């Protein structure tokens, strides 16, 4: 990180002493936090082995953890694929030369980006339930998937748009000059490059989808968080159940982020990585029009 060298010099003797004090303070802070948590856990009788034993019970894994994880992944993967398709279609729609198409896609994208995902989930779930749109067991799944698709698809549409805008204008001009139509230029020249450039931002959106699938618990979709809560109730081990859910979610998302970093470094080595255009994750955050890479739950 560049800031590390920017903000301070190589420390002299006094600074080194101060750093040593701060290091001790940091370690102390960590230990005190840990100690306070353990003390509180102990005071409430949460540290007895019986409470944590269900975590290594194979039955817990086969009947709660694994099914929950599968449901989470199912909802997330379907949403990711659908959101990418939605994002590419509407992102290209916003770049269309037809004014009506551009406006229509613009309104859809801006609307779904402004509405909270959970609000959409509640609405879709009740809508499906009242009108018997799907089989009863499918209602919550479809509500989760459609809400995640509409929101994240709109965000991806913005990424596609800013990715194409970030390309050098010569790319589009070259396409037009060899006789491709504007649509062909967009599809076969600009879009592939934009997709490569927006890869990091795209992966952070995938993490958002995976995290947001946990909202399904609010509409009784039996995903990981919901099944861990059920397990917490069934075995009277609420805290360990939440902790296990957190560990699994953090592991999945952290792994995804690591993978994205590796892919990005690889693309950079091949000289095809994200250009310093408006499509990298950092500059999308700076781009006030693309309120996208922000924190979704």
């Amino acid at each position, binding site marked *: 990180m560049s800031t590390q060298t920017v903000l*301070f010099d190589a420390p002299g003797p006094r600074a080194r002493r101060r750093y040593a004090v701060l290091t001790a303070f940091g370690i102390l802070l960590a230990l005190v936090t840990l100690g306070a948590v353990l003390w509180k856990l102990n005071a*409430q009788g949460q540290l007895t082995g019986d409470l944590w034993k269900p975590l290594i019970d194979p039955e817990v894994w086969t009947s709660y953890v694994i099914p929950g994880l599968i449901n989470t992944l199912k909802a997330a993967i379907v949403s990711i694929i659908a959101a990418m398709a939605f994002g590419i279609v509407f992102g290209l729609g916003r770049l269309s030369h037809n004014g009506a198409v551009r406006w229509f896609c613009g309104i859809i994208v801006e609307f779904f980006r*402004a*509405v909270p995902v*959970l609000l959409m989930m509640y609405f879709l779930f009740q809508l499906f339930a009242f009108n018997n749109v799907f089989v009863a067991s499918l209602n919550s799944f479809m509500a989760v998937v459609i809400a995640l698709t509409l929101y994240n698809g709109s965000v991806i549409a913005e990424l596609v748009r800013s990715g194409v805008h970030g390309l050098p204008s010569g790319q589009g001009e070259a396409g037009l000059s060899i006789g491709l139509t504007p649509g062909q230029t967009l599809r076969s020249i600009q879009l592939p490059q934009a997709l490569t450039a927006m890869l990091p931002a795209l992966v952070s959106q995938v993490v958002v989808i995976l*995290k947001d699938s946990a909202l399904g618990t609010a509409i009784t979709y039996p995903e990981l968080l919901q099944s861990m809560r059920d397990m917490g109730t069934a075995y009277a081990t609420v805290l360990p159940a939440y902790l296990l859910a*957190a560990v699994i979610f953090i592991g999945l998302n952290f792994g995804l982020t690591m993978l994205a970093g590796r892919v990005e470094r690889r693309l950079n080595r091949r000289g095809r990585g994200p250009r310093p255009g408006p499509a990298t994750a950092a500059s999308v955050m700076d781009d006030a029009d693309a309120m996208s890479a922000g924190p979704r739950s």
Partner: protein
Amino acid sequence: MLDILSRYDVLAAFWMTIRLTLFSAIGALVIGTVVAVMRVSPVPVLRRLGAIYVNVVRNTPLTLIMFFALAGVGIILQVNLVDQSSPTSVRDSAIRWAIVALSVYHAAFVCEALRSGVNTVPVGQAEAARSIGLTFGQSLREVILPQAFRGAIAPLGSTLIALTKNTTVASVIGVAEASALMKVIFENETASFSVFFLFALGFVILTLPVGVIFTSLSRRLAVKR
């Protein structure tokens, strides 16, 4: 639709959304600034602690943090944020834990926004600050952070908008904000598009000015280089 709305207090629900947003924004800004300072400090241990906080919080679903705060910390560990004898203690406790969860969650994003702001400050600024003899704390307070905050305005704006929308998650622990009221209306009446659009419009009204204000602020306050 009007007769439905006359029976429910939509404005009160949105007022709760606004209050959740305001208090959590303040909390997230405070925690996020502290963590951001830790993450750019010269002390490796503090840097590591800050990084752990951000990576853990950012990769955990807000829904999980919400449940964990109220059910795990509040009820099981008996950490009380409200006077147990007050008649509204159950309601208030849910609201306060929701604010804590929202603050803790968004602090990670505030921290990253500020750090990206620090990255916009050119090396020369920090070098100049050090060469006139300012300490790390002084150069951070007087030179780096004022510029970093300005560079961080746009991402902070996105974080605030996301926070506004994320207050809906507080409904999973029973806080009576806008989305919870919408759910109640749907359950009692029917899932109508008009009610949904009304609530969606409410969020658009809340978030649109924030976006406009922060965009113009970030343009106006941008450090001329």
